[in-house]
């Protein structure tokens, strides 16, 4: 881990203790309000990867992943917001609307997209249409729906960055990342720019940040859930003994903690490992997050089933992470390409 990462970990921990921990349940129930967003912005977290000349903090990638992990361990929604803003919106804005980046980094202008549309070279399921100098259409299940900037595909290899004319049609309570909100929007705008050929260099750039970024959130989710359950099994007694004193409980949690720490070590050294290894960590860590969070609920018994205990959100978010933020089939193809030299597994 770099010295910067250590400093960042300390700063983010301090920020989360002060501004997130006490509001984590409120974020789940009501979403992230502007106050939280601006507080994150004021510390430079919102535009963490943006170049300082565009209002960002320009921190190194390793520190960014550390930051995501810490945020995710308290509130995965906040980490998801940071990942979308920095790893998808950032590269697009740099290519299309640099003048808007400062406002985004300051939390005065929101930016959103369907992350799954920008993490593979497969044809995105939802697109907007460009016609007669306008961008039109509807998008379903958009995280953080609302006014601001919307980035959406308009053809197989082009995307539009839309600055106005976005109307929320319906909002709903999703399974995962409830702090972001979720809803359908309609778009009718003449205020946009088009980014052509994004599946080349831009996709590579997005993936080089999204792969470890998703891993960081997966490990943060796991860390948050295992921290909670470790505390709980220490204080909770059943049949006159602490839960931790029962061998299946202590062994299982110890195994999960060991796996987590091995993967965290890998993540901490992300700066020195290549994209292939980052992909492998993503596939492994997202699966691990589902396992660890399920165990955390189980050992909490009935209490784990209630949102007040702050454990069930990690389980829910572990699913959203591996469905919303990545394309598992595409990643499997990439993995087989790395291992066999060709995209195998699809006959």
């Amino acid at each position, binding site marked *: 881990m770099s010295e910067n990462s250590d400093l960042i970990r300390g700063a983010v921990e301090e920020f989360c203790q002060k501004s997130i921990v006490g509001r984590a349940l409120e974020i789940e129930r009501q979403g992230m309000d502007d106050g939280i967003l601006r507080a994150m912005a004021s510390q430079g977290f919102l535009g963490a990867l943006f170049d300082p000349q565009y209002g960002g903090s320009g921190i190194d990638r390793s520190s960014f992943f550390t930051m995501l992990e810490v945020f995710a361990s308290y509130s995965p929604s906040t980490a998801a917001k940071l990942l979308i803003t920095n790893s998808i919106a950032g590269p697009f804005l740099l290519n299309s609307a640099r003048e808007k980046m400062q406002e985004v980094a300051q939390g005065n202008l929101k930016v959103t997209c369907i992350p799954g549309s920008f993490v593979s070279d497969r044809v995105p399921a939802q697109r907007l249409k460009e016609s007669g100098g306008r961008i039109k259409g509807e998008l379903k299940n958009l995280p953080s729906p609302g006014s601001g900037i919307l980035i959406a595909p308009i053809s197989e290899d082009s995307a539009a960055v839309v600055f106005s004319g976005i109307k929320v049609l319906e909002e709903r309570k999703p399974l995962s990342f409830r702090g972001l909100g979720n809803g359908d929007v309609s778009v009718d705008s003449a205020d946009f720019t088009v980014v052509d050929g994004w599946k080349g260099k831009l996709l590579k750039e997005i993936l080089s940040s999204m792969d470890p970024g998703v891993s960081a959130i997966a490990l943060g989710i796991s860390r948050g859930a295992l921290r909670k359950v470790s505390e709980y099994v220490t204080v909770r007694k*059943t049949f006159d003994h602490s839960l931790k004193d029962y061998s*299946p409980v202590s062994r299982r949690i110890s195994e999960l903690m060991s796996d987590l720490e091995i993967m965290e070590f890998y993540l901490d050294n992300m700066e020195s490992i290549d994209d292939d290894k980052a992909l492998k960590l993503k596939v492994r860590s997202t699966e691990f997050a589902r396992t660890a969070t*399920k165990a955390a609920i189980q050992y909490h018994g*009935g209490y784990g089933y209630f949102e007040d205990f702050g454990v069930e959100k990690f389980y829910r978010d572990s699913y959203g992470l591996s469905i919303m933020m990545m394309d598992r089939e595409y990643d499997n193809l990439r993995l087989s390409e790395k291992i066999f030299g060709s995209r195998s597994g699809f*006959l």
Partner: protein
Amino acid sequence: MDFEFSEDINKARENARNFALSAITPELARKYDLEEKFPEEVWKKAMASRMVDFSNPWSMLVTIEELCRVDPGIGIAATVSLFGSEVLMLFASDQLKEKYLKPVQEGRAIMGLAVTEPGGGSDVAGLKTEAKLEGGKYIINGSKMFITNGQIADFFVMLLRTSRPDSKRHHGLSVLVVDGNLKGFSRNKLTGKLGVRATNTAELILNNVEVPSSNLVGEEGKGFYYIMTFFNISRAYVAAQSIGIAQGAMDHVLAYLKEMKDSGRESEITEDIQFTLSDIATRIEASRLLTYKAASYLFNFQPKPEITSMAKAYASETAVFACEKAMEITGESGLYGDLERFLRDSKIMEIWEGTSEIEKLVIARTFLKGGQM
């Protein structure tokens, strides 16, 4: 060995399936899940249809399966108004049965079973809520936690400590029927559940609540035995809920794959997906066989707790497994559709009516004590 049900049980399954498909629409399921509200209208319809009848346990088992297959939250809510009724059926006096059991069987009242306490759970014998006998009345003080129907039940079958334990902790426990409208009895609805949000859950607070001694079920001091007998039955029903959930998740997967096929994407149904589907189907079938075997012993009054525990543990883990795999296969369609509700609902199966860990201890200890397969 005959693996087929009799015609009347098959008919009960068919009726339940038809009822579920017509009465539990996806819109209704979403509404009650979102509002975290008991679906009174569906419950009343289910009771009026006479399909909720715990005196016909095989019929009840397949009915629970079919209702939970369409929506676990409403499916459970529609059948849980008699929760704990077996305790009365098996151990209560005729007077108590007439007064309390009849109205719930006729759909005029709702009952609940109150065992778990704050800080308690698996350790049933460690409960602390006391009932002291004074002048022909029991005076109850304490609280109960995570009680299904807690806020809406007319009365509760409640496990209480009536005398100090001797060398065995489970001694000194008794079952009383406690009306929900008594002075000193208050309830707090518990909200923010991960799933089964159409079911009502509450904390019960009892502050000097007076209950007539005639409300004692069976004999004083035998409460632990009565409740364990009940759990042995209710665990088979939880296994049925779990099978329904797993089957429902598989229905969602099959509908999704059919849509892929119909839209010319058949080649995307990889062998990997087919293997997963096969695993789900096999586990559901194994859960059914185990559950029906456990039920067969139970309903013939020859219970084998270790088989019931195997059924409950395996079926509940199958429910979670099926939902998790279904989410993987269906991706965004599952995440933003009705399947995600099944995932949330499924997790409680491994926790309530005996966690998987408790079931595994029951199984292991049976064989350590010399039990045979």
